[in-house]
């Protein structure tokens, strides 16, 4: 909610006088808005034209599935293919989705016109109403509007941010860096115990990097581990930026990682659980997600390294039996699925890693290292791995 206020304030501020924000951002943002508006209008006018000609109106929505995703070896990231699915109005199975797409397009247009932003939840409510003369609601729940919005993004080739919609904040950050967020200068060294929470929209128009002294970025999986590192002032000792994504990192977190990696030249190291979900988080950070393959070029960090937890750590760190969490059937099948992804399939080290985990028959969380010592992970494990250059790529 706090985020919403800052972003909504941002635009009027720009209009009056661009005080802190660089003046170039205002017109740039307006330009994007204009372009987005034009795309939405074109989408609608196409529909109007076919309708008035008494033909079946349609939308061509690029498919967001594994089959339409390819791994670009030279760029080392996922790319969306060219396959599209035609969404017709006069098809029993697609009519509702078509209606929802138009509804959300109209909703985004009105947001852009009003120069306001809404959360995904807010967008759901904006488009939610009962269709006149029936008992049917336009949307059953938020997941429906979220999916349709993603479709809309790929259909018109605009990003969610450009449609003035943002997601919930997720992830915290701390480190040797100063940034400017919506005109406010923020010293990330002085964030106390809570850290700086990463907003959903981290585009240059909102966040600029002012001063960075860090040497690298350490991405950990979730808040509990991040707290451990922050409390031990790991980032101070090792001069780095420390952040977590609260499990599967949100688009904001990934975009920020990418920007820091690209613009500041900081290498990214990931400390994740030794389980299929941890592996997939790494995969998403590194080469983008299947669902949002069209955004990989803005988000992927192909250089990201996987620091741990490794399957061999059970023996290497002499962990006790108690840390083992048995793999269930779902874990096993997911692990095999991940091993078959083209970007893992040709990576020998990763194949061995997954094989080892499967032969172990158990998974391990980062927190399992606490059984050794409270600060084992910050004082021994990570520094050792970094010093030895022992990671998976």
């Amino acid at each position, binding site marked *: 909610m706090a985020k919403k206020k800052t972003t909504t304030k941002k635009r009027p501020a720009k209009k009056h006088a661009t005080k802190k924000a660089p003046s170039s951002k205002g017109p740039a943002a307006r330009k994007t808005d204009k372009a987005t508006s034009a795309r*939405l*209008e074109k*989408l*609608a*006018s196409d*529909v*109007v034209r076919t*309708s*008035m000609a*008494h*033909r*079946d*109106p349609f939308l061509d929505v690029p498919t967001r599935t594994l089959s339409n995703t390819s791994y670009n070896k030279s760029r080392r990231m996922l790319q969306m293919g060219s396959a599209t699915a035609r969404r017709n*109005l*006069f098809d*029993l199975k697609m*009519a*509702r989705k*078509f*209606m929802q797409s*138009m*509804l959300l*397009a*109209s909703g985004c*247009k*009105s947001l852009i016109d009003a120069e306001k932003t809404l959360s995904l939840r807010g967008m759901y409510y904006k488009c939610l109403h009962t*269709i*006149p*003369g*029936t008992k*049917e609601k*336009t949307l059953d729940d938020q997941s429906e509007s979220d999916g349709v919005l993603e479709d809309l993004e790929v259909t018109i080739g605009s990003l969610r941010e450009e449609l003035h919609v943002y997601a919930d904040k997720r992830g915290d950050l701390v480190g040797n860096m100063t940034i400017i967020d919506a005109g406010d200068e923020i010293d990330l060294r002085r964030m106390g115990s809570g850290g700086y929470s990463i907003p959903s929209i981290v585009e240059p128009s909102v966040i600029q990097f002012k001063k960075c002294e860090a040497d690298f970025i350490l991405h950990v999986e979730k808040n509990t581990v991040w707290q451990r590192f922050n409390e031990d002032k790991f980032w101070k000792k090792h001069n780095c930026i420390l952040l977590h994504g609260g499990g599967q990192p949100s688009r904001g977190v990934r975009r920020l990682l990418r920007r820091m990696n690209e613009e500041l030249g900081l290498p990214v190291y990931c400390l994740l659980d030794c389980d299929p979900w941890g592996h997939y988080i790494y995969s998403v950070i590194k080469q983008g997600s299947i669902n949002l393959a069209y955004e990989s070029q803005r988000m992927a960090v192909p250089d990201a390294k996987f620091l741990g937890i490794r399957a061999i750590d059970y023996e290497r760190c002499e962990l006790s039996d108690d840390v083992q969490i048995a793999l269930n059937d779902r874990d096993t099948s997911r692990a095999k699925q991940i091993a078959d992804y083209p970007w893992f399939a040709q990576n020998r080290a990763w194949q061995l890693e997954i094989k080892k985990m499967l032969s172990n028959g158990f998974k391990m969380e980062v927190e399992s290292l606490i059984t050794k010592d409270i600060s084992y992970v910050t004082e021994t494990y990570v520094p050792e791995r970094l010093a030895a250059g022992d990671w998976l790529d």
Partner: protein
Amino acid sequence: MASSGTLTPPKRSKSGSKGSGKAPGRQAGGGSAPRKPKSRAPVTAETLAAKQRDISVSEFFAKNRHLLGFDNARKALLTTVKEAVDNSLDACEEAGILPDIYVELRHLPDIAEDRFIVIVQDNGPGIVRRQVENIFGRLLYGSKFHRLKMSRGQQGIGISAAGMYGLITTGKPVMIISKTSKKKPAHEVVLKMDTSKNKADVVSDTEHPEDDELFPHGTGTRVEIEMQGKYFKGSRSVDEYVELTAIANPHARFEYASPPTSAMPKGERRVYERSVSELPPTPEEIKPHPHGIELGTLIGMVERTDQRQLGGFFSNEFCRIGPKVAKQIASSAGLTPHSWIKSIDHAAAEKIYKALQETRFMAPPTNCLAPIGVGTILKGLQRGLDPDFITASSRPPAVYRGRPFIIEAGIAFGGNMPADEPAQVFRYANRVPLQYQQSACASFKAALETNWKNYGMQQPRGSLPVGPLVIMVHMASVWVPFTSESKEAIAEYDDIRAEMLLALKDCGRKLKTYLNKRAQIKRAGERRLVFQRYIGEISKACHELTGTDQEPLYNALLRTAQRKTAEMDKTLTQDGKLVDGKDKLERDESVFIKDVVAPESEPDRPRSGAGSPDPTGETLFGDDEPKPTTTKRKTKKKAKKKVRKKR
């Protein structure tokens, strides 16, 4: 065989009568001789013999009336009505008359609170004067016991037992009015039973020409029995009996006048009109099947046969034994077809019996059976229940212990039946409803055993399915194996239960198809309106996005929507799975689906006959006229989707 022996066999007897071989006295003596250790007069065989005497069948049943269904006042009423109506229906059908039956329970509260007169009247052939005493006054007298032919009554106990019960409880005789031809006046006979002699005394015997108007068709019988009774409504009542009988006998017309109750001080008069105007086919009488007899029966048959040689005995006394097979059996018993019957002693009979058991025969002929028939079951269930869906299944004839039988099953679903109660099971044997001892009956067990969950119903473990469902099971056989003389439950032979299960499964599968279609059609019907529902939203969104006028856009989309929907109807009817599958179910002659008139159908649009709101049976499939599928489909194409999709 046809000539009935004396009526001495103590009680239950197997298919063939054993004739007069046994001395009845011994059995009675064995049971009742008191063994007294006192040193009074020495008990000798002679003194015992003095006490031993014949027990009349009537006496036996007077003491054991519960065996016949007269356990209590309430059941007595039902059993009496049942026996009388069964006899009437049998008589009418044998005479080739469409039955027209009148049942009345007349309450006599002035005499006693529990005093009733049961009146049953039919339009049957009547009873000739000299037979009246025998039929109504003697137990175990009748035409049905000794033959292998399907009929409602079997033993010839029923109606005379009812008269006896009336006499015992009220002291009043039985009145029978019968008219055997148009020319003869109605004859009134009043009978009083003499239980010790198993015969009836005639109290009065008069001709009553003025009673002729009771029988407008010229013939008929009317029985009036005064008895102690208790009248209830609800399950196992006379009301229910009449209703169930009407379901299984749509060729009969029933009129029923119930006694006054507090709710209905004048009583109620219900009429069940005939819905099938053809009599069921007359079942043929058959000879015993070689696998259906036991050794004793065989010996009895050998003793009584008129045939002189073994070959003739086989081919005349049994069914399914041709000369070739007869020769084979004879030789495997060490005899020839020319062996003299007289020469067959016990050992030879045993050999013959063994040979019979080991030989394979064709199943007994099945023209002795008259199943209700699928079409008739549909009509019967519809008349009684008015459900949404009915299906029926008639199994091919099968055999238990050498006796042929046919199992039929029916399922009625929906309508006004309660949706949250266990299903009702209507059990029938030779078209007679069985109302007592449900849980002992093979039909009920088969209904329990069927896994209704497979057919889209809920079924708590070990109980009947829950839902608006009636399950009907009918067994037609030359000899229905009841668990007791009161004919309340069918005994559990494996062959019988297996057939029942198969029939129920067959019905269940069709029910499942129907339920699936219904759900599918409902979904499709809902979606059908989807286009029209969404175009409003879409034109509004487009208006907001581009500024186009909403109205023309909406109209353009609406027109496309209507065109698309019509196209879709067409394709679905022609090749779409949806409509095709439904038609298959509709074309099935063993299925009836009630047409529901769509509430929003335009009145000016011509509708096919299938949509007619007349619930009396014109929409039935199968029997009288072929289902007008083709016309209906054409109309469908023309008609708007709303009309079609509301079913």
